[in-house]
């Protein structure tokens, strides 16, 4: 089959219907008794250009699928003149005569030259060139009947005539294709700027996305992800973290306790109890990040939420130093706000670390340069407070059965909301829990 046949119409497929052509095809059993509005598979065929069915944005999907009438198969395959079989007995040696061939060439060329469209041209091609009943095909059959001396000559004539007709066909094909490109495709133009989002859009929550992003940074360094319960026992949330019952730092945790009060249960105030669970359950060395939800007794307003996300990291190994902490936090800060930003550690206090520090990152907006201030991101501080960190307090290690003389470790933690607020310029923390889809959708699925 010449390759040009298929390109005659880009919408048309000459690939036969697999079911119709299958060897086991049994036309009588194909459509089951649809004498009354019986079921018919919805056709997957695309309508021809310009046909009435192309306006098929039928609003009621179900109706269109259910009641479409059985329509004739529009595929060209069904119209193929495959039944025009030449009678093998009627071989006419005269058909190879120069005059006859010339006449065939003239007729074919004339017909091809006046073909009105690509469909007609394709039919003419079958009629004059490729079809089994085409004069050239009939003439070719006569070749074998000629005595050898004449056969070569007749063959050459036949080839020349064939080439001439094919040339005429190719020429007309080019003309008609050009014409189609110029007219039909222009007529088929649509407005591609029409909104096309018939599928509703969805989105990941920005805190989930940020948490995943940060987790990935640490996982790439070799950390693993540890998790724990949100309703937690006091021992994990406070006691083992060097926060005894009367520790003054407890009051700053604004803890939500589970009823009854004496049960020892509470909603974890930080993700640090996961550190304890990790040290109790995993062999050393331990390198984990712990993302999760935490709770404080704060009503929802612009800057407070009773529920908020944290991400903590913990490394316990032999020879871990504060220098390792600094280096790790630099990687962390870059993941949050971009590279090239200075970090600083400020001495601070947490019961579960000693020494302790606050992590500040240079403000990505003003970088502390007065020329870029006033700065709404850092209020001209030049630094953004990101989280707390320090070397794991020896008491914490002891409570987890780790020898503080042999092992040391660092831990750091940060609030996801605050980081997301800075990163995405969110002004109200309640936006994270309100669930307004306008807020959520702005983050999309690719965050």
């Amino acid at each position: 089959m010449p390759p040009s046949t298929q390109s005659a119409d880009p919408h048309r497929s000459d690939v036969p219907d697999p079911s119709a052509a299958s060897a086991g095809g049994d036309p009588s059993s194909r459509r089951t008794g649809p004498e009354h509005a019986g079921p018919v598979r919805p056709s997957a065929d695309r309508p021809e250009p310009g046909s009435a069915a192309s306006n098929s944005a039928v609003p009621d999907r179900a109706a269109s699928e259910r009641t479409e009438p059985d329509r004739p198969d529009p595929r060209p395959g069904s119209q193929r003149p495959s039944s025009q079989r030449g009678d093998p007995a009627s071989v006419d040696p005269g058909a190879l005569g120069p005059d006859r061939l010339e006449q065939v060439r003239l007729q074919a060329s004339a017909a091809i030259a006046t073909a009105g469209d690509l469909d007609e041209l394709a039919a003419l091609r079958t009629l004059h060139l490729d079809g089994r009943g085409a004069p050239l095909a009939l003439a070719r059959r006569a070749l074998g009947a000629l005595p050898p001396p004449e056969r070569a000559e007749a063959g050459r004539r036949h080839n020349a005539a064939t080439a001439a007709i094919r040339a005429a066909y190719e020429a007309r094909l080019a003309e008609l294709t050009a014409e189609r490109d110029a007219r039909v495709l222009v007529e088929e133009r649509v407005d591609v700027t029409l909104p096309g989002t018939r599928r509703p859009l969805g989105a990941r929550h920005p805190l989930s996305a940020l948490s995943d992003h940060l987790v990935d940074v640490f996982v790439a360094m070799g950390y693993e992800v540890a998790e724990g319960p949100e309703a937690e026992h006091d021992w994990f949330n406070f006691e083992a973290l060097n926060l005894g019952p009367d520790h003054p730092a407890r009051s700053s945790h604004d803890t939500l306790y589970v009823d009854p009060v004496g049960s020892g249960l509470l909603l974890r105030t930080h993700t640090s109890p996961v550190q304890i669970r990790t040290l109790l359950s995993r062999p050393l060395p331990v390198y984990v990040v712990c993302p999760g939800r935490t709770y404080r007794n704060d009503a929802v307003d612009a800057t407070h939420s009773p529920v908020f996300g944290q991400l903590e990291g913990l490394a316990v190994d032999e020879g871990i130093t504060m220098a390792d902490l600094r280096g790790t936090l630099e990687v962390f800060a870059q993941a949050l706000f971009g590279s090239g930003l200075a970090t600083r550690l400020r001495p601070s206090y947490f019961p579960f670390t000693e020494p302790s520090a606050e992590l500040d990152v240079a403000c990505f907006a003003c970088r502390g340069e007065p020329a870029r201030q006033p700065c709404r991101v850092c209020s001209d501080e030049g630094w953004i407070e990101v989280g707390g960190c320090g070397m794991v307090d020896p008491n914490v290690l002891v409570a987890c059965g780790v020898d503080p003389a042999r092992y040391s470790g660092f831990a750091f933690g940060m609030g996801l909301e605050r980081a997301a607020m800075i990163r995405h310029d969110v002004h109200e923390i309640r936006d994270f829990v309100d669930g307004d889809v306008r807020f959520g959708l702005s983050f999309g699925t690719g965050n």
Partner: protein
Amino acid sequence: MKIVMSWLREAVPALPPAKAVADALIRAGFEVEAVEPVGHDLAGVVVGEVVSIEIVRTKKKDVRWVQVRVAEAATRGVICGAFNFAVGDRVAVALPGAVLPGGFTITARRTYGQLSEGMICSASELGIGDDHGGILVLPPDTPVGTDVAELLDLADDVLDIAVTPDRGYGLSVRGIAREAAAAFGLPFDDPAEAASVPVPAGRGDDRERAVPEQTASGQTASGQAGAGQTGAGQTGAGQDAAGYPVVVEDTAACSRYVARVVTGVRPDAVTPLRLARRLALSGMRPISVPVDVTNLIMLGLGQPLHAFDRAKLSGPIVVRRAREGERLVTLDGVKRELDPEDLVIADGSGPVALAGVMGGASTEISADTTEILIEAAHFDPVAVARTARRHQLGSEASRRFERGVDPALAPAAAHAALRLLTELAGATAEAGVTDIDHRPAPRLITFPLAETARLGGRPYPAEIVRRRLAEVGCAVADTITGAGTGDGVGDGTEAIADAVAPAGADGDSVGDGALLVVPPSWRPDLTRPADLVEEVIRLEGYDTIPVTLPRLPAGRGLTRGQRIRRAVGTALAHQGYVEVLTVPFVGDDTPDRLGLTSDDTRAAVVRIANPIAEDAANLRTTLLPGLFAAAIRNIGRGQADLALFETGLVFRATATAATPPTPAVDRRPDDAEIAALNAVLPEQPRLVAVVLTGRREPAGWWGPGQPATWQDAIDAAHTVAAATGVDLTVTADALTPWHPGRCARLSADGQVVGYAGELHPRVIAAYGLPARACAMELDLDTVIEIALARPPVTAPAVSTYPPADRDIALVVEAGVPVARVTEALRRGAGDLLEALTLFDVYEGSQIGEGKRSLAFGLRLRAVDRTLTAQEANAARDVAIAEATRLTGAVLRT
């Protein structure tokens, strides 16, 4: 803690400007939240003498036409509405052109028929106090014409410092001054020592004196430094015959009690403006000389004091725990039922103060008080914290005691108070000193020199370690063999010797390369080498720590379960669901609104003891109420077409196990202890849920869109399942809160994992959701468990032979679920069936009442050959026969 810079400079005169001090303090771990300049914007206000006063009467009110002399020969006329000054008084006059705080400029103006050339100022107009009572009258000897801003030293700065709870000493000018001095390498004069100079001497005691002597870094401790301590007295009255009798019953909770008495306090005495302003800038209201004095001492030295009206005390003071049924009216006028754990100060009448928290009304000093007993004590932080918490009564005193007050400070602080009262109120200090001292022996820390580098990550030479520790007030010595003997120990190691002796430490047990360190009395937070490491490296600067990365062993990445959870979230988002994270608190009415029966696991709520709001006091047992609330919020804001999802923990109360004992923290708890703790936790499965309202396909130019239906809810479950790799089986069920006829039970591997469908109209009404709202909820933990248990996928043999497609239409009773018919067809068609598609469902007159026509396409194919028509038809016919047998289906012809 507000620190007034001029006050700080008294202790460290050479300090640079406030901003630099703030930066240095931040670097040392004191978070300066604000540097507030005060009084810098005051200009053109001078001292004037009132020469004459003439009343101007008007209809509305009377004012005065005042002549003030503001220079040798210059008198100005000023209209003034205040009446609290007289001819001859010195007052502050703002002349035309003067600028008052807030940028308020004074001009000459005609008023009440006079040209008023300026303004006579009140303290508040000068920005130095809240007193609106009238004009500020200056001392009579103030030179006329002097600039008031200079005179009163009004230009100042206030540092607002957030002191961390471990550093109680930072709640004083003394403590901050020490840090500031260390930060700039400046000499530091301990105000506590200055305060204690001319003290009536008690009986000296080397052991007691040794520790405070070492407090001043680099300072020569004079013999007077520790004076005022009477040594470790036994319970009972102080040894000094003239001291007020005091009995300390609970010497653990009150390790030090100093009492001093002053008499002859002038009731009309007024706190000088300079000190009043100092108090005001520190955030405390000036009240009276005795109260102001106690507050000044507390702010300056860090020692909370209490002033009793001695005339109202009856009998000896007793420091003890409260007795059952005792009550106390505190200074704030509240009558309090005391708890037997409360530490109180009592006299013959019963409790007169909550120790370290607040005084009582019965012994409160008043305007008539002339004799005062000053209490300077050290109370146990835990005792004070518990009492303050129990009575919800935090005070400046309790804040300091909770964080630790310097127990060596009491005598000096009491003495400083006496001196101020003498100066300001003409009082006379009684000679007697009561000092009941039960301080524990100083702690001794063996500090390996290598420890700083081990944690700090860089070398810290021994001399730096020594110097930095000295700067924070530690006594430092090298390991000395025989230090414990107490004989022949040099001056510099006195403290060490004292500390070693009671501890019974053996000198030679301390190896080389270690220091013996006694922390200063004001640093109860320094107990271990790690604490000392922090002091050294913070003073050296955290910015001097190098930047390295640990060398990690290879990690295993996310677990499969963690990856699946991410995939679920991503899949739902790609299917058009918006993730929300709702607040997981719900009200008591939630089970009712959801229509849950009391035996439903979703009705087993976990309650919060101290909820933020009473109507949201329970933890969620299902994600749906939070999603409903988010949906309604969106609808209220005009977004009606919603597809929301949430993934998160829910909380379900379990049968309450007995509260386990809390494990100790000086060792690892054993596995049984850990299991006991875990046993009392509520169940906290992770669920995923969606809610759908309005349209699933949006309306647009293409048409009106498609409403979200029960099918979309089930489809969401399939989306989740597909992301996990688990196959869900759908069966009809009728679980609330779903519509009983449109509720799908979702199972996997024979386990029920969730439900989906349209919501029950009653639930829709109870929550105010739009009609036909749909929802799905799956137990994600269980689905993931099932996914993890799945063996690796076995790949199908992909046939390259052509398929044989057969379509059939079956008529079944309308109540027969499609799933059953499908199941039967699959079974009948056997291995040749590659795919089965339901492409039409028809109900109508042509097939009869109560029936359904189901049209299926069967794609049949063999792996090893092209099927013959007979083979394909045979498979089809067996499928039909099986459907007929199992579901009563009839082939439609």
